[in-house]
């Protein structure tokens, strides 16, 4: 199979001697929605910048859809659209021109670039702002502009470096839907984000990078299944006077009507419900308090840090 991205023993040492990547291996399948997570300074942006040709690698092999970055760099660039972390468009150009120009730089005719720009600006809710100077857009609009610009040449691989940073929750959910649709249409997506809920919702596969090394590279579902303990918040139909004894589960009363229960892997919530029902308590609704990916992320990074000390 030809992978969308293949990275082999990738190393990067910056001029100041900082070793950002210490030989990472990574494969991403075509059509994947892939999360690349890691703490600040772990090497995520360096990896992405190397893929996008914004940073020169020190060692290693990078292939995109089977084409080597070293020997077919311009072909590889044609396959990639990138949404960087920082705003990097010309703030003195109108919104529409930012997208059209980028289309041109990928070889589109002005007519084609204009048509693609119109489609994307409409889809991303920026059509009314097309004549506005891009510096006058709000933060969320600027992020959407960068997504439109990255997609103008219909890339097969879209790289999103914290695309929803500073975007309000409503807009963020809209962007998630848009990105899911793009992915469903066949575009491979690599996402880095600090919103782990975002990665959990969108991504099928995941790699966690820490101190320039990949410490986990797996399927999102498999990873989440390794969560050892989860905490559920239960909203009950009547005040809970005293704490019923729930075998093998740690439960506590938070508010008169609210109960919090810790369950370890393999335990069933049905057991908890049965005990409560025995005491005449019905659960009206519940939520999972634990951000499972966040817990795992912190655990893996801490383990990696301890191992390297």
């Amino acid at each position: 199979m030809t992978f969308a991205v293949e990275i082999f023993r990738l190393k990067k040492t910056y001029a100041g001697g900082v070793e950002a990547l210490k030989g990472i291996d990574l494969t991403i399948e075509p059509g994947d929605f892939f999360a690349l997570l890691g703490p600040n300074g772990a090497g995520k942006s360096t990896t992405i910048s190397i893929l996008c040709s914004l940073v020169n690698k020190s060692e290693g092999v990078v292939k995109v859809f089977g084409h080597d970055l070293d020997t077919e760099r311009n072909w590889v660039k044609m396959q990639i659209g990138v949404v960087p972390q920082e705003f990097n468009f010309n703030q003195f150009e109108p919104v529409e021109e930012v997208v059209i120009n980028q289309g041109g730089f990928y070889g589109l005719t002005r007519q084609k670039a204009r048509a693609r720009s119109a489609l994307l600006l409409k889809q991303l809710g920026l059509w009314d702002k097309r004549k506005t100077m891009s510096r006058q857009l709000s933060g969320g609009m600027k992020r959407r502009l960068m997504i439109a610009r990255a997609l103008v040449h219909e890339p097969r691989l879209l790289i999103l470096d914290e695309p929803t940073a500073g975007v309000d929750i409503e807009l963020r959910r809209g962007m998630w839907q848009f990105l899911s649709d793009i992915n469903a249409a066949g575009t491979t997506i690599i996402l880095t984000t600090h919103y782990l809920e975002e990665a959990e919702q969108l991504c099928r596969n995941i790699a966690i990078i820490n101190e320039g090394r990949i410490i986990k590279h797996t399927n999102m579902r498999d990873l989440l299944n390794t969560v050892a303990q989860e905490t559920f918040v239960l909203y009950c139909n009547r005040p809970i006077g005293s704490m019923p004894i729930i075998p093998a589960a740690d439960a506590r009363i938070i508010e008169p009507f609210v109960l919090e229960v810790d369950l370890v892997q393999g335990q069933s919530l049905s057991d908890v419900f049965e005990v409560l029902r025995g005491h005449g308590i019905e659960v009206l609704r519940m939520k999972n308090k634990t951000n499972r990916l966040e817990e795992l992320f912190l655990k893996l990074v801490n383990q990696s840090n301890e191992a390297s000390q």
Partner: protein
Amino acid sequence: MSRYSSERELPISGEYAKPSRGLSPVQMWHAFSMLLTREVLRFGRIWVQTILPPMIMTSLYFIVFGHLIGPRVGEIEGVPYINFLVPGLILMSVITQSYANVVSSFYGAKFARHIEELLVSPMPHWLIILGYLAGGVARGLAVGAAVTLVAVFFAKIQVHDFTALILVMVLTSVVFSLGGMINAIFANSFDHISIVPTFVLTPLTYLGGVFYSIQMLPPFWQQVSLFNPILYIISGFRHAMLGISDVPVYSTYLILIAAIVLLYGITVFLFHRGIGMRG
């Protein structure tokens, strides 16, 4: 499914797809014309800062040096002083504006990071360089034309060799556009993009025979002036307009072509290594 391995000895799949190139020649043309249009629109939008000042400056030179001081100078090599000034003033504007266009546009793109739009695109380095050069040449020629228009009101415009006139003007703007690009690549602050124009370009231009013929200098300073490459360019342009020159005409083309080859080579090298652009 994707899996991590640290044990592999070879690239993961070992498979390479059929080699493929980047943009086709037609696509390259679209990319180039888009970049050139962007550059022309950039300096066109701010014409009050880019086109107007050299016109005003040239008018002042004609008034002060041409009309007020010129009659006292008389003729130089059989040409009235005000007419003698015309080629130098036109070419001085071409030099400064070509340089200024590329240095400010390219450094501005670096500073605001929208240079990344080009660096992530499949445009080959030479095409990006060509796009910026074309923008510099466009501004150089636009200002050259505007200054010539101003000169019409003050002096008699003569053309001795029209082809040479266009050729020298275009080659000159290519040379100084390349100079501006190299300056912008190395620049880390806005101060750095004004150092070369202020401390190198302006003195060399003023001492390059814009306002005088080196025949008017003592022999020692005549010899010193021959080390100034801008003298050859201005002399060649003056020959194209007035038919007079301080140096052999072929030397103008030698200097210009040698400068283009050298500066282009340096620019391509800097792009290839990513100096000042990529980490």
